[in-house]
């Protein structure tokens, strides 16, 4: 049966396809993006073979890792600026039944046993509330999983399961205040409109601790970079938890529950867990901790060189500017340092515009190709509480929090 949803999707596909090529950053062809990914020696062979550039409806060509559910990463070239365009923003789903939500009939239910009442809000109700805007990085917990050695099972992301946008919406705390939070409340539970194919597959349900939900930076967002959220990024509204990985940023949000017991579904435990004690944990989720592990929470300090692809050629004696982005969980980037001698000595890069403590911070560094042959440039970000990037991968079973220093090698001719 041909549904209206299907027809709409097809119309979107054609538009995206026709409009795609002239929307890429200058000097970038889709083929170049795909090629950079396909030749990354760090990714699994099978991933490099199956990944292709492909456009979802309403999106530019992104690197397709899986069609269904759709998992598409953003090519490196889009990370030369602090804001990632909506139509180049990565797409990540766990479940394949993703309805097109109609903004006119969409409702957000807010309640739960830890609430004093319950309420249903529509999009107009949300938009009538005091609005806030915030620039924040949305990064998948498993970003760079494909670069783990040894490889671990899961979506084999390269560098692009992340993006940074200006989110507009209402404070989650203002929504919760409408119904009243009882003092025994410990977590807030989110559910979105996306569903599993089989009844027995666990629905994607996530929770955050009450203290995080009440922070003024945690939002129910309905706009991204001045536009309604794209369908594949959570239209008409999604949760935004700046500083925490994207697993909590539930898309197509339809239900918010205030609860007095820890949420126990599959996607809270055993999924999305990191071993205790391996990573810095300033931001704890105590009601979910076990003797061995904890839910992943804050994003680790990180940086990425985006001005040049790895292995690019440079003429001997020429100069160029190496640049990229740095980010963390919201302490803010203090500095980015660069090394051209494999980490023996470091020089500071120049930081770009500060769009807020949760945003990508651009950096730039002058580089002269003095000697012929291979020359490597490495970046290392440090945040305002002196956390910095490791030289070696911190192993963990699910392949989360890859924040090893990134480097590129020039081929100087």
């Amino acid at each position, binding site marked *: 049966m*041909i549904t209206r949803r*299907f*027809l709409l*999707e*097809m119309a979107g596909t054609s538009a995206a396809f026709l409009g795609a090529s002239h929307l890429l950053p200058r000097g970038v062809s889709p083929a170049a993006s795909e090629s950079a990914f396909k030749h990354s020696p760090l990714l699994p062979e*099978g991933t490099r073979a199956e*990944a292709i550039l492909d456009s979802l409806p309403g999106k530019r060509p992104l690197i397709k890792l899986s069609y269904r559910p759709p998992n598409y990463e953003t090519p490196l070239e889009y990370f030369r600026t602090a804001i990632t365009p909506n139509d180049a923003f990565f797409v990540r789903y766990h479940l394949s039944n993703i309805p097109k939500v109609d903004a006119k009939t969409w409702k957000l239910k807010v309640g739960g046993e830890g609430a004093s009442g319950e309420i249903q809000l529509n999009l107009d109700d949300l938009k009538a509330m005091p609005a806030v805007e915030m620039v924040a990085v949305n990064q998948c917990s498993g970003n760079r999983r494909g670069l783990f050695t040894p490889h671990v*099972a899961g979506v084999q992301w390269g560098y692009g399961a992340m993006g940074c946008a200006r989110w507009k919406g209402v404070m989650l705390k203002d929504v919760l205040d409408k119904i009243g939070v009882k003092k025994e409340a410990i977590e807030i539970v989110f559910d979105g409109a996306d569903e599993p*194919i089989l009844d027995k597959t*666990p629905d994607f349900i996530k929770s955050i601790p009450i203290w995080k939900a009440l922070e003024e930076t945690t939002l129910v967002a309905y706009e991204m970079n001045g536009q309604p959220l794209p369908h594949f990024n959570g239209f008409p509204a999604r949760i935004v938890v700046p500083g925490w990985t994207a697993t909590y940023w539930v898309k197509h949000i339809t239900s918010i529950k205030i609860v007095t017991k820890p949420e126990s579904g599959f996607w809270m435990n055993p999924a999305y867990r990191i071993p205790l004690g391996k990573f810095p944990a300033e931001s704890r989720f105590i009601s979910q901790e076990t003797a061995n592990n904890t839910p992943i929470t804050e994003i680790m300090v990180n940086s990425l060189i985006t001005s040049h692809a790895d292995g690019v050629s440079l003429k001997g004696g020429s100069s160029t500017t190496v640049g990229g982005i740095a980010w963390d969980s919201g302490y803010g980037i203090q500095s980015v340092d660069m090394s051209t001698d494999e980490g023996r000595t470091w020089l500071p890069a120049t930081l770009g515009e500060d769009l807020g403590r949760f945003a990508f911070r651009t950096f730039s560094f002058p580089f002269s190709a003095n000697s012929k042959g291979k020359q490597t440039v490495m970046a290392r970000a440090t945040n305002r509480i002196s956390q910095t990037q490791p030289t070696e991968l911190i192993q963990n079973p699910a392949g989360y929090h890859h924040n090893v220093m990134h480097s590129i090698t020039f081929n100087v001719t």
Partner: protein
Amino acid sequence: MRALTIAFFITLIVVPAIAEEKPIELKKAPGVEKVEANCATCHSLDYIEMNSPFLSAAQWDAEVAKMIRAMGAPIDEADGKAIADYLKKNYGS
């Protein structure tokens, strides 16, 4: 005539739908039909290629067990074994 028009219209629409999710050609080997019949219900088969060829036999067993136990895939024991064997032989480390 009306039926013909509808048939024509459907053809026009179905073609780009195929382009949207390209069929994944898994290696032809014993068990491939069970993989296609079961795994593709919930996810495209590029998941298998993507996670290759690095998973050990034990890791592929664990993946199949996860799909049945945690994800609720209605796969009986014999089919589960055939699927795991196929994955180990064709997409294993």
